């Protein structure tokens, strides 16, 4: 397998954009990635698109060729990947695999979602389609409800508190307020976070990520060809995608995600690194409890320590392990199909030293964790300076 590098990144802002359709968001991000690398559309050999529910949100299907042709990528294989909120993490995994194997050289991997054209109850229903419709969803589970039940059990077994969850929200809002491309650039206090309106007990609106529109894209190539392009190449050091059962009630232990642990272990092994070698991370904080469990499952802290570690400030931009310096899904926004590649763009910005006020100190090696559903898909990526 050949080493692979990211040679260009491009993102739209994340937010609610009533005047923008799915295609225009995807074209903006894809064109920016090409421009960042100073690559021509004719150099791109394949297009890998991550999108969770474009047909349900917008009615439009056959999305990959629709976007590829609008980007000027004529005649190339253009395929959509669906893995719930890990859709573009999965598109990225398969794009890197294809380049590493020698099948292609220059490939565009992208993620996009257009969500704000639907009402909150309808969005809730569409997102619930990533759960098991025959059991938990039929009984009335939503994604906030599934993660609320995970939070309750984590609190019961490890003593995790509402303050621990709120600390994650306060920190991610503080980071997102400094990110010009974030959906909700608003600082919140611990008191506000604790007094939020309940969504699904014990989770409040401040524990839940945002419903957003947005797109993110990366151009990749074999490391040996990276010098032909304009941007400083960033190397893919470790990468793994894993899967698990979809229904929460089929998991033995809901306070940990088996798919995250195994994706982390595989990515660390591929990179020849251990958790303490990672300088910073972007993790999938679809809910505050998910960030706490992610830092435990990825081996940054021991089981049950995620809450106290977060409350003590260790995961802040200038802490021992900055987590979600971008603002995370909580504040940056969560256009679900765009989130995985969006995290990759955030890592690249940090490693290049382009993160401005959010720049972390130990920026040489970063890890991204993208989760689908309540842990049925996970993609873990480790990037480093080439």
């Amino acid at each position, binding site marked *: 397998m050949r080493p692979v590098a990211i040679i260009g990144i491009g993102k739209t802002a994340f937010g609610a954009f009533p005047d923008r359709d799915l295609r225009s968001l995807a074209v903006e991000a894809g064109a920016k990635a090409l421009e960042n690398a100073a690559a021509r559309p004719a150099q791109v050999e394949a297009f890998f698109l991550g999108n969770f529910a474009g047909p349900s949100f917008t009615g439009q299907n056959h999305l990959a060729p629709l976007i590829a042709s609008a980007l000027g990528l004529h005649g190339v294989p253009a395929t959509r990947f669906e893995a719930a909120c890990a859709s573009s993490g999965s598109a990225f995994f398969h794009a890197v695999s294809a380049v590493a194997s020698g099948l292609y050289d220059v490939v565009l991997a992208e993620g996009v979602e257009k969500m704000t054209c639907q*009402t*909150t*109850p*309808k969005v*809730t*229903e569409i997102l*619930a389609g990533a759960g098991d419709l*025959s*059991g*938990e*969803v*039929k*009984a*009335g*589970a*939503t994604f*906030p*409800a599934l993660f*609320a*039940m*995970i939070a*309750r*059990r984590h609190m*019961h077994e490890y003593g995790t508190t509402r303050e621990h969850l709120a600390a994650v929200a306060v920190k991610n809002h503080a980071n997102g307020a400094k990110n010009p491309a974030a959906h909700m650039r608003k600082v919140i206090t611990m008191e506000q976070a604790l007094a939020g*309106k*309940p*969504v*699904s*007990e*014990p*989770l409040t609106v401040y524990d839940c990520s945002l419903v957003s529109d947005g797109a993110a894209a990366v151009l990749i190539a074999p490391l040996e060809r990276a010098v032909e392009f304009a941007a400083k190449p960033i190397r893919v050091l470790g990468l793994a995608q894993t899967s698990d059962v979809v*229904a*929460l*009630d*089929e998991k033995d232990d*809901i306070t940990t995600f088996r798919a995250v642990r195994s994706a982390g272990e595989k990515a660390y092994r591929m990179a020849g690194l251990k958790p303490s070698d990672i300088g910073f991370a972007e993790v999938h904080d679809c809910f505050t409890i998910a960030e706490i469990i992610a830092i435990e499952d990825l081996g940054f802290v021991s089981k049950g320590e995620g809450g106290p570690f977060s409350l003590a400030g260790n995961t802040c931009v200038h802490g021992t392990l900055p987590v979600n310096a971008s603002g995370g899904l909580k504040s940056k926004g969560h256009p679900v199909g765009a989130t995985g590649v969006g995290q990759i763009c955030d890592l690249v910005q940090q490693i290049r030293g382009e993160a401005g006020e959010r720049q972390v100190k130990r920026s040489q090696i970063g890890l991204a964790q993208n989760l689908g559903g309540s842990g049925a898909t996970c993609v873990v990526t480790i990037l480093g300076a080439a």
Partner: protein
Amino acid sequence: MNPATIPTTATIYTETVVYSPPEQYSAEAPYQLAILNLPEGGRVTVRILGERVSIGDSVDFVESRNGVSYFRKRLP
């Protein structure tokens, strides 16, 4: 789960009260949802009727409607 296989009693593994429901359940919110530990092993996601329950509580089967099982807190 097939109604024929639903036990009459079980215990709460975890639970939540849903305030922001999906569109099809808008009229029913807020409602309590729980995952039960079944006496013979395995788990199932159900609705709770009446008094709110917490982790470890025992619940009794009430009825099954449209493929969803409803349980109620067991009285002491």
